[in-house]
């Protein structure tokens, strides 16, 4: 454990004209920590995620990331080249819809290997061996390595997307509803897999979800958002077991019991 956070976010806001995307969000994220951002559609959680991952530029506020050399860099002052390099080496982004994060017309092996080739790996045999290893880690049979993700089920595609993101050993992964649109049994398998990978690799992650069960299983900390603002934040089990804000109480009381 280091004493410095990986990501420092201060007073981040994004406005779409007069509409609020997210408003005055601040938090620190430490290495190995999983932060869940929960809230209903339109609460600004995806806007926040897109700002943090530099896919969107915020209207105001700052976010600093501790680079591998230990220096903090202000994300929105980096050049696009630096940001894109960061995104394909030290970061991952898992989309809700795997088709947004995969190349659907190239093989599973190439999908996993692309980031390696992007950072300069030029040995086919090694790239392929790494791809095989990662496919097995996300529980995809080795004999599917040359199949295109078009031929994969939703759960497999999502697992492939995760492998594609983690192959360069990122330190921070953004996830946007990673289990959205999957069957419950497939969700459970994916969550368990994610949980294991996050622990084994010591990843820090920011997970946007509307599913409180996903938040409880994956995250140590959570932020509850409503109308672009953070209405409550804290330890995940504290927020879920002793919700304080009216909106959090509504969310928690709305969970269906099985």
């Amino acid at each position, binding site marked *: 454990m280091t004493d410095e956070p990986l990501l420092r976010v201060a007073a981040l806001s994004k406005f779409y004209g007069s509409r609020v995307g997210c408003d005055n969000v601040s938090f620190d994220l430490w290495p190995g920590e999983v932060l869940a951002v929960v809230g209903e559609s339109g609460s600004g959680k995806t806007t926040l995620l897109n700002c943090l991952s530099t896919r969107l530029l915020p209207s105001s506020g700052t976010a600093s990331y501790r680079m591998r050399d230990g220096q903090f860099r202000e994300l929105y002052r980096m050049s696009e080249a630096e940001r894109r390099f960061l995104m394909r080496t030290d970061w991952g982004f898992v989309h809700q819809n795997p088709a947004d994060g995969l190349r659907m017309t190239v093989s599973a092996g190439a999908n996993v290997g692309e980031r390696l080739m992007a950072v300069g790996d030029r040995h086919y045999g090694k790239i392929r061996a790494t791809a095989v290893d990662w496919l097995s880690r996300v529980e995809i049979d080795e004999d599917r390595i040359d199949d295109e993700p078009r031929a994969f089920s939703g759960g497999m595609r999502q697992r492939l997307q995760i492998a594609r993101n983690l192959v360069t050993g990122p330190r921070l992964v953004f996830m946007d509803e990673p289990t959205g649109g999957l069957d419950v049994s497939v969700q459970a398998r994916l969550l368990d897999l994610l949980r294991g990978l996050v622990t084994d690799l010591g990843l820090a992650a920011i997970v946007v979800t509307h599913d409180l069960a996903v938040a409880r299983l994956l995250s140590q900390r959570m932020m509850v958002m409503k109308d672009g603002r953070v209405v409550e934040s804290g330890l995940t089990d504290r927020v879920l*077991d002793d919700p304080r804000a009216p909106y959090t*109480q509504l969310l928690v009381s709305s969970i269906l019991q099985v």
Partner: protein
Amino acid sequence: MPTPLVVSDVAKSFTMHLRDGINLPVVAGVSFSIKAGECTVLGGPSGAGKSSILKMLYGNYAVDEGQIIVMHEDGLVDLAHASPRTVLAIRRQTIGYVSQFLRTVPRVSALDVVAEPLVERGEEREAARDKARALLAKLNLPEKLWALPPATFSGGEQQRVNIARGFITAHPILLLDEPTASLDATNRDVVIELIAAKKAAGVALLGIFHDHEVREAVADRIIDVTAFAPGKLAA
């Protein structure tokens, strides 16, 4: 004996925003301390706030007022106002907790559920599993269940997994929320034995035991929680 945990003037209430914001006071003026090598028991009828106190001490419930001072990593930390990150560190290193019910994770075996807290503290996975095996054997959990996820276990089996998970580490403070509620006499005795061992190792224990026999066997001191009823403070 050192006093690793001091609670002073802690108050807790629930505000029910969905019911017109009514305020339900739970406890107030909670002040006590626990000592290393002792088992302190929270006593009082159901609804007196015993579980709430335990949950506040674990950071699981927020604290409205007061302080919870914990000896953590050679310093004193106020758990009531600590950052989430500090609370997590305290849970990892200082305060262990055996909850009333096991919260299961899909697809994780009973053995790994038990070994996990050790792995989180940096132990080798196989060494942690060895200790988990020993503890599960001691608690008479049939070996054929070890590799299975506990979701489908009976209440008593789940509770034994839960106890093993709580007792496997060497946390200096251990909170026990009715660990023996669904156990048979044999396993109850095993738990009593485990608690005695913890005491001998200098662990400060704080527990809730409805089972009279167990309470008699383990308690060094009983704190009557009704003394912390919110109304009493005004009196």
